[in-house]
């Protein structure tokens, strides 16, 4: 019974991906003068060379982190979009640590990653707290905090990290990591670093947290039905707040991984929208943490393939965005129809929280007595 349900989910996702690919192929057919070459580059590009494979796996690593961050808050049915900002601040703080911490490379890297986690955690705590205790809409607050995070990142970079009179907006390379300025690669001549292993560990961590701990139980129940969780005695405010904070910590590692493992310095823009790619990955993985890894591998493969296609043919790189848009559209449309069907059969699930509902404490003296005598 359960296996059937899992198979059904997989089949749904595969179908959605197939439809998205079919539509994008149609678009390629229309816009390209060399469609067969474009197809080929798109589908095989990411595996084309050591360099591209490295690029693919690095992106997959980053998307695993952001995908996990998003999946975790989605399971609590919080539509937090803050991974991008958390990634930026994680990257910034990891970079600062790598530039200024004394000690050997291993210690510096460890400290940098831990500081990135704490930074993301605290930055995720803000919208979590606002949501849990003031009912602030997390979509709005996280998007605004993203803008703040990128601005803070740019400010600190330009004001404090950039060497004076440097021509580009970036810090000095991380000398602590030797010639490459980067974390030691797991595979020679690639940028695949220990963060890839951390990504796998993070997926296992989130899985255990969600499905094996009492905290995860409370979180999932809050996501299924917030009022039920409250009724049962779950501290839903604390749970929601912590879910968003932990999610921020995971997104913070993504930022650390990018500056430490890929760029070797604090550069102008570490993320190419990975925080938002995390949403697609989480949707593809149906918010199952262990499924985030294959989803991230798949989606980053398409991304890199589209890149290669953009460089070598007349089809622009934006094709990847078309696919992303179609996937989001199909998955949300499907979720929407399921929700509507349920609604129509009278099993309306309450929209997010009455959690923000104020505990109206009104003095009885101010209320006119209207009861009949």
């Amino acid at each position: 019974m359960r296996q059937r349900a899992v198979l059904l989910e997989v089949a749904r996702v595969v179908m959605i991906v197939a439809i998205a690919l079919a539509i994008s192929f149609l678009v390629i057919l229309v816009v390209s003068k060399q469609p067969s070459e474009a197809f080929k580059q798109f589908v095989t590009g990411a595996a084309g060379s050591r360099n591209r494979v490295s690029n693919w796996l690095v992106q997959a690593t980053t998307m695993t982190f952001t995908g996990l961050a998003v999946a975790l808050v989605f399971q609590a049915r919080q539509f937090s979009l803050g991974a991008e900002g958390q990634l930026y601040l994680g990257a910034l703080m990891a970079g600062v640590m790598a530039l200024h911490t004394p000690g050997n490379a291993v210690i510096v890297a460890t400290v940098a990653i831990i500081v990135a986690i704490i930074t993301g955690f605290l930055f995720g705590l803000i919208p979590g707290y606002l949501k849990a205790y003031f009912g602030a809409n997390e979509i709005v607050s996280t998007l605004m905090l993203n803008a703040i995070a990128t601005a803070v990142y740019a400010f600190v970079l330009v004001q404090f990290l950039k060497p004076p009179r440097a021509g580009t907006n970036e810090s000095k390379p991380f000398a602590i990591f030797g010639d490459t300025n980067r974390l030691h690669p797991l595979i020679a001549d690639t940028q695949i670093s220990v963060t890839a292993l951390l990504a796998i560990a993070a997926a296992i961590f989130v899985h255990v947290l969600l499905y094996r701990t009492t905290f995860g139980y409370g979180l999932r129940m809050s996501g299924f039905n917030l009022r039920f969780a409250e009724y049962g005695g779950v501290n839903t405010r604390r749970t929601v707040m912590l879910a968003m904070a932990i999610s921020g910590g995971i997104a913070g590692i993504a930022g650390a991984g990018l500056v430490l493992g890929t760029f070797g310095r604090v550069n102008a823009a570490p993320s190419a929208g990975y925080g938002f790619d995390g949403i697609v990955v989480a949707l593809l993985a149906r918010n199952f943490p262990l499924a985030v890894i294959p989803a991230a591998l798949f989606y980053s493969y398409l991304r890199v393939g589209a890149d290669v296609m953009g460089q070598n043919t007349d089809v622009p790189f934006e094709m990847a965005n078309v696919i992303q848009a179609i996937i989001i559209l199909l998955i949300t449309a499907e979720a929407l129809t399921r929700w509507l069907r349920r609604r129509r059969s009278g099993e309306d699930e309450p929209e997010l929280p009455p959690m923000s509902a104020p505990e109206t404490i009104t003095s009885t003296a101010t209320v006119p007595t209207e009861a009949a005598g």
Partner: protein
Amino acid sequence: MSLSPQSSVLSPQSFVLEARGITKRYPNGVLANDHVDFRVLKGEIHALVGENGAGKTTLMKALYGLEQPDSGQILLDGQPTTIPNPDAAIRHGIGMVHQHFMLIPSLTIAENIILGREPTKRGVIAEDDAVRIARTLSDQYGLHVDPQARVDVIPVGERQRVEILKTLYRGAEILILDEPTAVLTPQETNDLFRAVRSLVAQGKTVIFITHKLREVKEISDNVTVMRRGKVVGTVRTADVTREEIARMMVGREVLDRTRKGAAARGPLVLEATNLNYVTPDGKRALADVSLAAYSGEILGIAGVEGNGQTELIEVLAGLTLPAAGKIAVNGKNVTGLGARGTREAGVSHIPEDRLELGLAADASIEENLIIDRYYRAPYSRGGFLNFRAEAENARRAIADFDVRTPDAKMTARSLSGGNMQKLVVARELSAHPNVLLAAQPTRGIDIGATELVHRQLVAARDAGTAVILVSADLGEVMALSDRLAVMYNGEIVALITDVPSVTEEELGYYMLGVKRQEAVTSNE
């Protein structure tokens, strides 16, 4: 006397409506209607009864054009007809009054009646005409309403009359009333019955869906009984007793009343003093409510829905903070402790809305059964879930409370309504509470499940639990309660200590606020 299952006592000549061999299978495989034959004579009141899930609603949806049957035929005045949508049904003179009213609260009664078919003068809605139309219809059928009153300020009984007038305005000859008395007081029910008789006297036909057998006997000419998607039979109401109809519905003998012994009242367990609560939209839902619940006793709370019962239970359960007042359990103040603190003081809660509060429909049955205890040993071991304890807990609950499911790892959504309620009851009673708050514990569930829930409530009482039972079903609270409080407008207006001696009529007066006891004290 015996009933042949397919006894058809109706003469064939003048069926105003006839359904032949209606079959409907839903995409999820449920066979909701299985070759259903249903015939209604012109000018009769025809009761349609059956347990939840018997297929009544599906049949009515087919007649009203909301569902298309897979096979079968609908005849109106002997002519085969297809009814693709409700518009067509209305054109054919079929009107339906739903259980949940479909009125616009901010409009007047007259405006609601004409909505969708407005009388106009030069393209502008003619308000005068609307009021006149409403008044004429209202007088003609004895359905008294004030056409100029806004719908949001009128009582439920009047809203229902507006719904009926709306269908009449649209030319309904056949009216389908879907459980119309579920929300009414006894007095309002009497008014409704008078109106229904007046409709029939003027040539209309009424199909009356209900599960209250007393009403079937009182109002209907003929009754069709459905069970598991099939018609068990159609009989002349005068020829059968309530017990016989019940047996047709369930397919076996039913105990009409839950047997319970005398209460052995123990010590005071829960004491609420001067509870006050004002809803966020400013309604004073609880006005100085005080009550006491004793071990070994069922305290019933009767009242028309919306008179503060929901708020009272939520306040007692720790889900809502009262504006003023105090709640003590076994002498310990639990006010403001929240849901978990209140539960830890031994208060369990069967909520009135299973899907909104009582369950996470997409979580597994096992998971639904530990929401109140997952953080404690043995379910938690150092913050990690103990799956074995979780499974064992579910196994016990399923066995003790007869929850019918092939697998406790399936979602709660996969259960039928009655089994969902058993799941909630199982969880709440397996906590062995000092106090059990039971709000509408049998709403919408079938007779079998109702019997089980009633037995469990009495068993909990006999084991020393203080049970507080809120129900809109007057028969239920009267049968189960050892003491009975009546709520009206956020207050307790009566407390009956000798429940068997009180009549429904008298309770009705309290429920309507016409009468109240002087100096109600609930602490005796």
